[in-house]
């Protein structure tokens, strides 16, 4: 088999030189990729997966070097090739689809020309033939209206379309190996699903091999034939996809799978188990097995470096105790978190916040030239009439894709964006639109947690100063009292009291987000708005932040609005889920009812687009056509009618749909189609397979 492999990596060690010392970002990695197959490369940040891809492409930066081992592409040793020889391979036989198409395409050259250039150079086509070929390629990657795209510049089309262009570019020379570096991570789920379909189709048609790098275990499950799991620079497990998900034989893989909520799971029946501690820095690797300090199964033998054991047909694992794990004698799961049971009490609760027909419209600034031309002001309706209650002590999840207005709604509630119409009432206080008119009573009750932990804390203020301030200002405590409260706050987010003296630069991403949580909880609010608080964190950190967030919320009976683009996370954490599209709510439902029909057609499309973390699971193939309309356009009737898979006809275009209610579950949705008709047509959108991995507590 090794002979046939298109790509064969053997005992590869890649290091970066830093101050005269090599730090090995990838160590002893062996991997073989047969033609026509897809290998998923999974790992958290710092696991060395990008280093590996760069080494394969021979794109390593100046200070990087292959220190040991071989990379064979089609039988040739890549490490021995000169730059000139590589030039014949780059693009022609091996191509890279980068994570951010925006930054890898030239902004000042039309897209068609950028692809044509490659065709002229590598395939020797003349100008005219190259142009026709470009259009064919754009057609293959299913870009609607290829001619217009070919004439467009990168800023004129959407991210999803750009990613298609960069795929077309990579395919243009019919390479035998395609390296994809997180190609869908910056895309919405509905676009991501369409891209994954496209990749699958392309491999089947062309027998291309793919190395697919991602941190998303769902995407890997859906696209790859085999999966290689990397941790701290080492390949810890490598197995056929189905085997890996059925029974992971390395505690790290197990840990990763237990960190993420799966679609349909709820905190009431499943607990997330974060992996303890954090990934070791490259200059301070543990002795023996690299995962040992975080492993629940570590014993004395783990102080010896484990070889890559062959555990079955094509199944390799770097764990001394794989046989015991395989036999089910020991439990490779991380210990369950200690936090108390956090499920909210059932029954109705009075609303802590109620929103009535909230609108946030922005008027776009006109430039001087527009002003002289007499161009009218364009109005962007970021939020167009949202009515929603957040009950006391409960979590309302708000799901939507980018541009759906979910962040704007959050900002309107806390007063960072001024609403243009509608009422927001907090307990019994009517909130004015702008922050300046709000009293400290109102501010105290309402806090927000932001998405990016890197930006959330002032780099020049110590953690203590950051936390003391709201306590002293909004709660009116003395300085001594505030210091004590800060220590308590730090303890409640599981950080030791000496963190008060640290600067944000000395904290990891997860620790920063913990401090940001503590700051939001500091004034004892009644309501917390969490705007994608975990989406920029690694999965193992994500789980601990989600658990912590819910623990704090439950202890203090705080109502929360939890905003995310991830339906599985929202479904896991929330008591009520609201789905937002183009600034309007499409569906508001109790969390346990969201995964069962009747669905609003948009929710249905979302549910069938989320990549299932189960290669054997079944899922409906419902894909949305086209892009989300720009919020500055006026969409008449139902806002979703331009992309709706259950489009009825004129009624959807002309008439605003009614809110319908499903009496049995209390689910409400915004659609012309009646409950009975939806029930008759819709099935459950996804189903997990019955293997033992998918049952857990």
């Amino acid at each position: 088999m090794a002979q046939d492999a298109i790509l064969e990596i053997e005992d590869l060690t890649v290091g970066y030189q830093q101050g005269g010392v090599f730090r090995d970002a990838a160590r002893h990695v062996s991997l073989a990729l047969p033609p026509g197959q897809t290998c998923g490369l999974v790992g958290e940040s710092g696991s060395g997966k990008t280093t590996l891809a760069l080494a394969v492409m021979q794109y390593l930066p100046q200070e990087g070097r292959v220190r040991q081992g071989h990379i064979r592409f089609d039988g040739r040793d890549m490490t021995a090739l000169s730059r000139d020889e590589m030039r014949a391979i780059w693009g022609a036989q091996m191509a890279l689809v980068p994570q951010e198409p925006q930054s890898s395409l030239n902004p000042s050259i039309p897209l068609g020309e950028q692809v044509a250039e490659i065709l002229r150079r590598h395939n020797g086509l003349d100008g005219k033939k190259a142009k026709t070929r470009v259009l064919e390629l754009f057609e293959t990657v299913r870009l609607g209206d290829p001619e217009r795209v070919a004439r467009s510049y990168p800023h004129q089309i959407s991210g999803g379309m750009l990613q298609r262009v960069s795929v077309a570019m990579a395919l243009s020379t019919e390479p035998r190996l395609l390296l994809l570096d997180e190609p869908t991570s910056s895309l919405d789920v509905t676009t991501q699903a369409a891209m994954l379909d496209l990749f699958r189709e392309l491999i089947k048609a062309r027998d291309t091999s793919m190395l697919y790098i991602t941190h998303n275990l769902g995407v890997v499950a859906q696209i790859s034939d085999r999966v290689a799991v990397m941790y701290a620079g080492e390949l810890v497990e490598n197995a056929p996809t189905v085997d890996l998900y059925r029974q992971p034989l390395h505690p790290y893989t197990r840990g990763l799978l237990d960190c993420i909520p799966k679609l349909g799971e709820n905190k009431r029946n499943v607990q997330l188990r974060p992996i303890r501690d954090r990934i070791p820095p490259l200059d301070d690797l543990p002795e023996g097995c690299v995962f040992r300090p975080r492993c629940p199964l570590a014993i004395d033998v783990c102080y010896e470096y484990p070889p890559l054991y062959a555990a079955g047909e094509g199944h390799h694992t770097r764990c001394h105790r794989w046989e015991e794990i395989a036999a089910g004698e020991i439990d490779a799961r991380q210990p369950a978190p200690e936090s108390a049971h956090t499920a909210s009490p059932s029954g109705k609760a009075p609303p802590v916040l109620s929103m009535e027909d909230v609108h946030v419209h922005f008027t776009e600034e006109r430039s001087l030239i527009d002003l002289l031309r007499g161009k009218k002001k364009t109005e962007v309706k970021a939020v167009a009439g949202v009515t929603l209650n957040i009950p006391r002590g409960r979590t309302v999840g708000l799901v939507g894709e980018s541009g759906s207005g979910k962040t704007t709604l959050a900002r309107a509630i806390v007063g960072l964006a001024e609403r243009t119409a509608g009422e927001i009432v907090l307990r019994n206080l009517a909130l004015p639109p702008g922050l300046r008119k709000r009293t400290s009573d109102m501010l105290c009750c309402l806090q927000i947690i932001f998405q990016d932990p890197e930006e959330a804390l002032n780099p020049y203020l110590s953690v203590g100063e950051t936390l003391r301030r709201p306590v002293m200002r909004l709660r009116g405590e003395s300085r001594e009292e505030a210091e004590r409260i800060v220590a308590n706050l730090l303890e409640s987010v599981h950080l030791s009291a000496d963190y008060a003296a640290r600067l944000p630069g000395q904290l990891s991403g997860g620790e920063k987000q913990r401090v940001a949580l503590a700051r939001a909880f500091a004034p004892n609010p009644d309501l917390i708005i969490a705007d994608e608080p975990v989406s920029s964190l690694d999965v193992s950190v994500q789980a601990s932040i989600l658990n912590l967030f819910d623990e704090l919320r439950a202890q203090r009976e705080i109502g929360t609005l939890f905003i995310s683009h991830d339906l599985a996370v929202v479904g896991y954490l929330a008591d009520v889920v609201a789905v937002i599209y183009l600034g309007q709510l499409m569906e508001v439902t109790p969390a346990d009812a969201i995964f069962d029909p009747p669905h609003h057609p948009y929710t249905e499309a979302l549910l069938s687009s989320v990549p299932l973390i189960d290669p054997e699971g079944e899922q409906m193939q419902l894909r949305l056509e086209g892009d989300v309309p720009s919020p500055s356009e006026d969409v008449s009737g139902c806002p979703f009618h331009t992309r709706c898979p259950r489009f009825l006809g004129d009624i959807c275009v002309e008439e605003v749909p009614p809110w319908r209610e499903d009496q049995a579950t209390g689910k409400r949705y915004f659609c012309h189609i009646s409950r009975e008709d939806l029930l008759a047509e819709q099935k459950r959108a996804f189903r997990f397979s019955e293997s033992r991995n998918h049952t857990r507590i």
Partner: protein
Amino acid sequence: MDKARDTLLEWGDWIWSGLRQLYACPASALGTTIFLLFLLLALFGPLIAPYEANQQIVEDARQPPSPKHWFGTDHLGRDVFSRVVLGARDVLSLAGLGTLAAVAAGTIIGLISGYQGGWLDEVIMRFFDSLLALPALLLALLLLGSLGGSRNSVLAVIVIVYAPIVARVVRSVVLSVKTKSFVEAARVQGEAFWYILLREIFPSTLPALAVEASLRFSYAIFLVASLGFLGIGVQPPSPDWGLMVKEGRANVTQTPWALYFPAGAIALVVIGVNLISDSLKQILQVPSQLERR
């Protein structure tokens, strides 16, 4: 009392570590040495200079450099070395005070303009644009023409010429910082305008500000000298380097040293400060970036 001592010690540490960093690279070490040398001259000039600034030694007029007169004497018999040494205080204090005032004014305006935005920002920035459209020296000439040449009016000129430039630099940093979550978090917690401006945003402008201030300082030295040379700044007989260059130029055929030494002093200080400014860029980084290295 203890607290005051602690603060003093802290400042000492801070200056010490700053100096250590400046001496880490040869270019900034050279710049720092030059600057410290001139600072010593400015502080202790009267103790170092062998003669009075305007003391005429008629019998020694037009002497070339010699052990008695290190830099020679000018056409009036004044000791050039003494005048260069004593002139340091004037130049450095004028340029220093002017830069401080310009940086303070520019920072406050830049902070407010950038954070407030809207029409206020628009008005301030367009006004500054029109000021910056004129070459600095021309603007200075115009202003001095109406203010009359004196120490105070030179100070005022430095502020008016350089405050807009500082304001722009500060404003650009404010624009990038004010949308960050930590500023928004402070707003949501009801922090007052000035608190946000000074405590949350201002520290982020410090690295850019320090670099800009040192650069402005070297240009201010230059400006003071140029104004002296043109005869509209500090008036004779004060030992201003620019003035000395002007007088030296008139007698360049007989006493070229009276031109070269003050001109060299100007060049040396400006180069020294510029070298420091260059390395400040590398030394002053956000703490988080420092930590990661």
